[in-house]
């Protein structure tokens, strides 16, 4: 009882520490705020919009940003602001889902491999190595022939190729802490394997996992846009930022806002995610305090 309490307290101070460090990392903090605003805008925004996504209006097409349509309208007279929100929902949903799914796969494989070691470890790591070094794009191309461009299939396809880094990190961390005293102690007291992994080992791997998941989020968003460019991403009419940006390229001269706005959202979001990842890396790593 007492030991658990102490541990809890330690955990709290650790998180307070992290928050302190993140706050000092002003750029990361700003990135967090902007990213939060973008998420809020995409998720809550449509509730306040008087337009509908699939509603077209041929009389008001290609209107430049104005008071009525503050981001203008596209070539079919659809409100770009609303499409940005809905597209953002899809893009972010893809990003977060891939991040989550690859996190689950990565943690599962990494922790199994690291904790049990032996033959299981070498088979799993061999597999991870192969997956890691196989050029993913050609395989993405093959897989996307099956999916037919639904959001779900894109998430699955991208997840399959983004868990390996995590698995390696988790395994490495576990290997290094497996031998430490508190794990040994838990084992001595007869705790089951699953319990040891969940209660003692996973929390220690949290830092690299969070950083990696953040970067995977960015990777998934940009990978979806790349697939869209090749015609293999999420298919219209479901909008994503990448797809809106690609579709707008032929209006570069006549209606530049069509490309500019989704481009800006995509760019700023990715910028935020990367700065955030960077800040988190510094904030979550206890060693960093030494350097500051």
């Amino acid at each position, binding site marked *: 009882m007492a030991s658990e309490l102490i541990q809890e307290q330690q955990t709290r101070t650790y998180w307070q520490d992290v928050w302190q460090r993140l706050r000092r990392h002003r750029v990361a903090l700003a990135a967090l705020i902007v990213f939060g605003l973008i998420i809020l805008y995409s998720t809550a925004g449509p509730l306040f919009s008087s337009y509908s996504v*699939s509603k077209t209006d041929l009389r008001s097409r290609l209107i430049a940003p104005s008071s009525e349509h503050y981001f203008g309208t596209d070539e079919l007279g659809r409100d770009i602001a609303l499409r940005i929100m809905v597209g953002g929902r899809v893009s972010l949903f893809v990003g977060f889902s891939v991040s989550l799914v690859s996190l689950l796969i990565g943690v599962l494989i990494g922790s199994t491999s690291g904790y049990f070691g032996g033959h299981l470890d070498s088979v799993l790591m061999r597999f991870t190595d192969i997956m890691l070094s196989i050029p993913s794009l050609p395989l993405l191309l093959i897989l996307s*022939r099956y999916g037919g*461009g639904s959001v779900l299939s894109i998430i699955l396809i991208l997840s399959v190729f983004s868990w390996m880094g995590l698995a390696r990190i988790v395994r490495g961390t576990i290997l290094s802490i497996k031998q430490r005293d508190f794990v040994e102690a838990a084992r001595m007291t007869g705790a089951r394997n699953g319990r040891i992994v969940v209660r003692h080992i996973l929390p220690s791997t949290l830092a690299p996992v969070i950083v990696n998941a953040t970067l995977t989020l960015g990777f998934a968003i940009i990978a979806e846009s790349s697939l869209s460019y090749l015609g293999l991403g999420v298919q219209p009419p479901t909008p994503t930022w990448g797809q809106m940006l690609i579709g707008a390229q032929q209006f570069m001269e006549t209606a530049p806002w069509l490309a500019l706005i989704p481009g800006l959202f995509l760019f700023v979001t990715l910028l935020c995610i990367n700065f955030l990842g960077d800040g988190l890396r510094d904030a979550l790593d206890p060693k960093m305090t030494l350097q500051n």
Partner: protein
Amino acid sequence: MKRYSVWMAILIFSLVIVGCVAAAPAGEMMEDEGPKVLVVGTSQEPENVFVMWGSTRTGSDVMSFMWRKPISFGGDNQPFAEILESLPSQADGTWVVDEEAGTMQVTYKFRQGLKWSDGEEITVHDLAMAFEITSDPNYIYYSESFPVESIEVVDDYTAILHYKGINLFPDQEVRTHVIPEHVYRPLWEEAKAKGGNVWENFGNIEQVAIKPVVNGPYMLEEWVPGSHIRLVRNPHFNVGEEPSIDEVLYRIIPDLNSLAVSVASGQVHLTDGWLSLEQANAMESAPEVDPIFVPALWLEHATIQVNRPPLSDKLVRQAVLTAIDRDGINEALFKGQQPPAHSWINSAHPAYNPDVRQYNYDPDEALRLLAEAGYTPNADGQLADSDGNLLEIPIITISGDRTREQVSALVQAQWQEIGITTEVKPVSARLLFSETLFDPPNFEGIAIWRWVFNARVEPRGFWYPGESAAQLDQLFAEGNTWAENERNKELIDMIDAELDQEKRYALLQEQQAIWAEELPVLPIYWHVRVATVNTALEGYQPADQAMVGWNVETWELE
């Protein structure tokens, strides 16, 4: 630490210098007084350049610079004799119809002294050679319903084609190709002797697929897969005048935005059929590029599931077409260049019937028709039948085509407006043609795609239930009002037997009236072919039926 900054500055600076030096000769090279090279842009790579084997559009485009046919189409969309001395006609006895036997024979006379690119003469043996391959089951396009029975070689320049039935257009198309027999007979025999997949054996020979012996103004000099095809002058070309352009360079530029930029910056002189209307209209800012819009017999249409409710009901078909603002789409997306289609024949064609029932945009009329068919708005404003089943029509569209995506989105919005439950389902072309359309039980709603018609307007392959093209065949074969329409079948039988063009057109007009009433497919709009031409190029004369390079001999490049 300053030293690092200095090193970095030097590094970046030197890279910039290298860049500028490398960029400098760009200007000079263009002014170089070298051979006149015409650069044609395409976004798709041809699969081969053998005349019997064109399956892609780029393929036939490139071939139009390399091959000449017995009969060609000119800029006026009319046929003219090219390798032939003259077009066959019933008047001079070169086209004889035996109405009783239901067969006919046509005499074709070749011009004398015409040469292949290896200097050998073109004779009717070359026609017979192609026919021999065509009638071999190993030929990839082999068809038992091929209309020619046999070829009778009278002399080196005269051949008689015996037709299995009555074919209406021997003066527009010689049904077989012309390939140099002295080159291809030994290769064909060799391929057959090898056994197995004979066509593959034959097709993988370099002299067949890549560097054929040709009779057109240019022959293939170099083909770098993924990059370009370089055509140079055929030294023996004498089917037409000697061309003034030295080389034709076909560049493969897969990204359409990159292609548009290459056109705008003058790197590509000519594109035909690749850029979108939007991109061509944006060329206004490039004064040296002229966009050309060629009216074409390409019908953008929706294939429908006619065998099951709701679209098995003619009234619903009429209603949903009335609910599409096709004029609005034309104005908004196409600047008025791609007008709504009212029939399967274009209004520019003499067989067009201007009095067919037209479905102009009228949401109220659409609702009235739907009410008549039993669909009325429910409490949520969605249309439903008396049992409460929603009127649900999914829209299947080919993914990756920007314009088609836009049109589908507009149709979806306009249908939703009047309460039809609908969603757009994009599928790949591969999937649409291999599974969706071939699998009627799984096909629901409508599928929007494009049909390319021929100026000869032959209805059988499209509109004769039981004998139409593969995709429609499955749909039309089952019991539906279109398959049950006896008058339609009767008319098509009569159209196919009618040799008098005027009478044939009259029959076609009656058939169109039935068609427009029944709506076996939903006509959406007529395409134009979009070409862009640099002002440096003169003489380019596109037409729907004519091949790109049909008159390349007369082109001039500044």
